[in-house]
């Protein structure tokens, strides 16, 4: 099968510091890829480049029929890419002045110009799916960490994006809320949503991912099916990392 998402030669520099040093990655439709690696390796930066939160310096990003050359990307390319990629933030980043429902609807009404009743209907469905059917009117400050992150995921789901990006979605959570958020992501993965998820939850990555990508120093060192990476990694750096995280 061909790539639905094709990332080619992605480079990102911060000042003189090259944080992504030529990333190539191909995701087939419905493929779920987990990115692991040491801290400061560029995992977040990779996700942020795909969403243009940090505009990449070089390389090409292709999502379906949209292809963007990083060096030449304009505002329209950036917005088009963002509409095809849903981003879930480590710290939820919910809009504090909007209810759970409005957080989910915002992209539909403001960005996609959906009529309000249609967006409300969709938000209702999503609230059901994330298990917050009765909390639509709550403001983020009244929700637990786990509930907030589920709304964050719901907001990204509403985009119906070809690619969902999760940047350590459970790292900021109290342990008691990790389970419910992982459960939700697992259900989304079961729906064969194409996704790229950065996580420190190795067990979870092994369970849901079709493929594990190990990054270090701004490069992809090794990738393969979970059984191979976790059971029989070829590269010494991968093995060293996996020993460290246990």
């Amino acid at each position, binding site marked *: 099968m061909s790539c639905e998402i094709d990332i080619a030669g992605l480079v990102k520099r911060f000042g003189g510091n090259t944080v992504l040093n030529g990333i190539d990655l191909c995701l087939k439709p419905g493929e779920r890829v987990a990115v692991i690696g040491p801290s400061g390796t560029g995992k977040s930066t990779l996700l942020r480049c795909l969403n243009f939160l940090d505009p990449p310096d070089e390389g090409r990003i292709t999502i379906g029929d949209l292809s963007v050359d990083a060096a030449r990307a304009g505002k329209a390319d950036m917005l088009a890419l963002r509409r095809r990629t849903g981003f879930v933030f480590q710290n939820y*980043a919910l809009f504090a002045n909007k209810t759970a429902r409005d957080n989910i609807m915002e992209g539909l009404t403001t960005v996609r110009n959906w009529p309000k009743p249609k967006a409300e209907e969709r938000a209702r469905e999503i609230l059901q799916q994330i298990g917050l059917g009765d909390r639509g009117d709550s403001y983020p400050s009244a929700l637990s960490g786990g509930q907030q992150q589920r709304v964050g995921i719901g907001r990204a789901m509403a985009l119906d994006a070809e690619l969902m990006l999760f940047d350590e979605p459970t790292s900021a959570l109290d342990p008691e809320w990790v389970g419910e958020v992982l459960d939700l992501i697992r259900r989304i993965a079961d729906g064969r949503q194409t996704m790229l998820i950065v996580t420190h939850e190795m067990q979870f990555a092994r369970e849901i991912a079709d493929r594990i990508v190990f990054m270090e120093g701004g490069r992809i060192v090794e990738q393969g099916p979970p059984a191979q990476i976790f059971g029989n990694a070829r590269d010494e750096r991968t093995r060293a990392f996996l020993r460290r995280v246990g």
Partner: protein
Amino acid sequence: MRPLDIAYMWELVPVIAGYIPLTLFMAVIAMVAALVLAALLAIVRVLKIPVLDRVVAVFISFFRGTPLLVQLFLFYYGLPQMLSFLTSIDGVTAAIFGLTMHFSAYMAESIRGAILGVDRSQWEAAQSIGMTQGQLLRRIVLPQAARTAAPTLMNYFIDMIKSTSLAFTLGVTEMMGAAQKEAAGSFLYLEAFLVVALFYWAIVELLSVGQRRMELHLGKAVAR
């Protein structure tokens, strides 16, 4: 020592009261204009829009760095000498203009602070769902910044009302101007200025009550 001429003060009450509308008119118009201008200035500064950012920085520095009275004189007596089309401008318009410029400079700084107080990750979240800069400012950032800045902006409004008294130096007969005229006729300066002072005090106290109510209300909304 002579006693206060209470009867004369009572006579002045309706006279001065008759000028409350003009005072409030100048303050309200200047406040609305200053709010709009200040929001624009703050946005230019926060987004660091090239060139404009420098211009705005100088604008803010100038209007915060010079006395309001000097600014009013510059606008009303000074500028028309260079720009002849300004000669026909009346004192009320010049006062509103000067108050707008002066207070927008201060208010821009507090709005800027309030904007920067909105968690950066909310900007990114708004961008990530494809919102344009204008949309995310209007729908996410400014509503939250407005809440933070509201108490400070209310203080500026109170300050604005008191500052309208300077309009009398441009020949405008507002509350202060009226008191001045009365005093010049009766020579009872103490009584006239005391009455006008009490009027300002009463207006400001009324507004302060409103301000406390508003803060309580906002506090509740945030704590929800």
